[in-house]
């Protein structure tokens, strides 16, 4: 018994302080895969239900709605092209770096962490698709999380709602900057260190600021849902509802950030850190 306990403690210490046991995780990944896949079955079943058991009329109505939406988006996109061209011209006039578009890669959710203290998911893209640690993951609505572990054909993503996660944001209304933290609850994020005199209102949209060079800037993170002012406290409690459907989205996008591409830009003197990246952003 003592031997086993000691062995376990040694393993804990080894795994916490050294990367020596990491290959074990990588080798065992194929075994976990079936269980991971099984864990998404209820979600898949619900999706299949939604898709297959819909009546014809509803499908036609949906299709009409989507077509109208596409038309509206296309119209907006035309405008965007012009604006982005203008923006680029202005930036070049200001002698700034060229504005690069973020390129994205579609990924599918293949697993959810069963541990309630960890908000993490597994996606079906890995090192083979140029995924690297630290890339941002979004869904159709907003920022979801970041890649924390990369395997050959899939990778683990830490969600923004995990209690260990934090990211820099700014308020769309007044450009106020802040740090937003996960709360361990899928429906809530916490904005930290907001002083009672700062201008923040319920309904404010918060976007990723790109500071810290981890997340690309300008992706919606959430909207302020409640503000709790306690006169005895130095800071106010600000609760934020995440924009992304953190616990429901099945299709996700991995964003190859433009900031990283700028690192490789000839203007910067430092040696390019990530060689695989220039290919990725060129997609």
């Amino acid at each position, binding site marked *: *018994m003592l031997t*086993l*306990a000691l*062995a*376990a*403690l*040694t*393993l*804990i210490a*080894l*795994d*916490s302080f050294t990367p020596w*046991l990491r290959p*074990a*995780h990588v080798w*065992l990944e194929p*075994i*976990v895969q079936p*269980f*991971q896949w*099984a*864990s*998404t*079955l*209820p*979600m898949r079943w619900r999706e299949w239900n939604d898709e297959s058991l819909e009546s014809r009329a509803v499908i036609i109505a949906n299709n009409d709605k989507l077509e109208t939406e596409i038309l509206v988006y296309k119209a907006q996109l035309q405008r965007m092209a012009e604006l982005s061209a203008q923006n680029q011209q202005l930036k070049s006039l200001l002698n700034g770096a060229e504005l690069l578009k973020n390129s994205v890669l579609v990924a599918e959710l293949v*697993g*959810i*962490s*069963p*541990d*309630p*203290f960890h908000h993490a998911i597994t996606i079906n893209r890995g090192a083979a698709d140029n995924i690297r640690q630290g890339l941002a993951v979004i869904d159709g609505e907003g920022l979801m999380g970041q890649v924390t*572990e990369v395997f050959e054909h899939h990778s*683990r993503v830490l969600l923004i709602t995990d*209690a*260990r996660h934090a990211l820099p944001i700014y308020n769309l209304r007044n450009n106020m900057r802040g740090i937003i933290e996960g709360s*361990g*609850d*899928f*429906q809530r994020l916490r904005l930290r260190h907001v002083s009672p005199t700062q201008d923040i209102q319920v309904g404010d949209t918060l976007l990723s600021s790109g500071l810290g060079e981890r997340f690309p800037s300008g992706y919606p993170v959430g909207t302020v849902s409640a503000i709790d002012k306690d006169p005895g406290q130095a800071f106010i409690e600000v609760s934020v509802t995440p924009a992304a459907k953190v*616990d429901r989205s099945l299709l996700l996008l991995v964003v190859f950030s433009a900031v990283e591409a700028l690192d490789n830009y000839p203007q910067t003197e430092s040696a390019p850190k990530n060689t695989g990246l220039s290919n990725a952003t060129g997609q």
Partner: protein
Amino acid sequence: MPRGNSPLPLTAICLSLIGALFLYSLPLHGDLAFWRPPFVLLIAVYWLLIQPQHVGITFVWLTGLLLDLLYGNVIGQNALAMSVTAYLLKTQEYRVRQLSLPFQCLAALFIVLIYQTLWVSTRLISEDISLGWRVFYPALSSALIWPLLAGTLYRLHRLFH
């Protein structure tokens, strides 16, 4: 319950472990995930009590290690918590075997309570997790699910006997 000098029910053990891992990875929505009983521990403990001549604390330790390896926890956390729990149970082995079903449920509650305490303490060394009463929810759900689980395992054991 089948006991005595029976051969090692390897198929039943493997099947039950696969089932436990499957139940462990099924997604539960939101706060419901905190109620998930530690299926792997319960099943390992069942075999420990039923097959004392084949299954020992080393087996429980190994299943804990498997759980750690499969789900990317810090390696050894579950192995430590599960084997210490199994050891404590083993000291009371003869009493626990005599218990009637309602008392077995109560025993399951205490076993999971001990396990959760150990597991959360090993996690607190390296992680910053928010505690609360929800840490002990699995103990309640384990006590409730124990009759069903024990019944299923008994049938499975019979099937491959």
